[in-house]
């Protein structure tokens, strides 16, 4: 049986990106600062991973202002949700195959 490693999404090889996608799969929207607190990483690190996911068109950005403070929210696109689900399915399949071995 062929192990479907190639079905794992390259965009989710990085743990932080996978975690960001998990949060956006469970919540309609999530803002930058809450994501930062939750994942416990630096501004720059989070921003670069968000950029990468945005480039893949897996997430969209909503910018607004709360008073004077900029408030940036992120939302998973349909494409992103589909990719996330397929990645999870592939992970599950891998686990099942290793159990058989």
């Amino acid at each position, binding site marked *: 049986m062929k192990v479907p490693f190639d079905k794992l999404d390259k965009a989710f090889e990085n*743990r932080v990106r*996978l*975690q960001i996608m*998990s*949060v956006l*799969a*469970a*919540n309609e929207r*999530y*803002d930058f600062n*809450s994501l930062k*607190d*939750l*994942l*416990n990483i630096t501004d720059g690190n989070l921003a670069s991973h968000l950029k990468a996911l945005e480039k893949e068109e897996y997430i969209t950005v909503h910018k607004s202002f709360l008073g004077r403070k900029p408030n940036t929210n992120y939302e998973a696109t349909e494409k992103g949700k589909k990719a996330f689900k397929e990645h*999870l399915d592939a*992970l*599950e399949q*891998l*686990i099942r195959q*290793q*159990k058989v071995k």
Partner: protein
Amino acid sequence: MEEQELQNELASIRSIMERSSKFISLSGLSGILAGVYALIGAGLAFLIYENNSNLSNPSFFVALHNALYMLAELIIIAVVVLILSISTAVILSNRQAKKKGQSIWGTTSKALFFYMLIPLLTGGIISALFMYNGRPEYIIPSMLIFYGLSLVSASNFTFGEVKYLGLLEIVLGLIAACLPGYGLLFWALGFGVLHIIYGSLMYFKYDK
């Protein structure tokens, strides 16, 4: 990738989805203590009520004075129980949040607070209207019903068990509305006994 690694990956996804969407730091111990405060409050209210009804043949003004005095005492007891319960919940949940790496005032706790607040404010207003219009027998049932509704509405943002506590409070409130005169008993059951049972279950399941 090794199987263990894959399992860890899936476990971390599950945990982050839960931590991002639910406030899982609600302390069970604070539920138990809220129940204890409510029972003490109900006991005090009962003593005050008994003392007042023991006066033999009071004049109209003495009776009116006593009734107003009793009402003020009951309101003070309710407010003290409420403040003690909320501050205990905040302090203990803050401790839990630190342990679980969640923020006490983050996305999830804000949602929890907001969805609880709408039914609670509605219930507060309707209770005040019942008092103003001289239907005090409906105050305790509406407190129980609206508190139950607030728990059901907030349950999406914390442990699912909160929903069942809410449903039980609503049922108790509806029964209390059918049995005027037993308000204090239902108040003690709903805010005291149910909180202690629920808090103990949660304490052993999640606090550790």
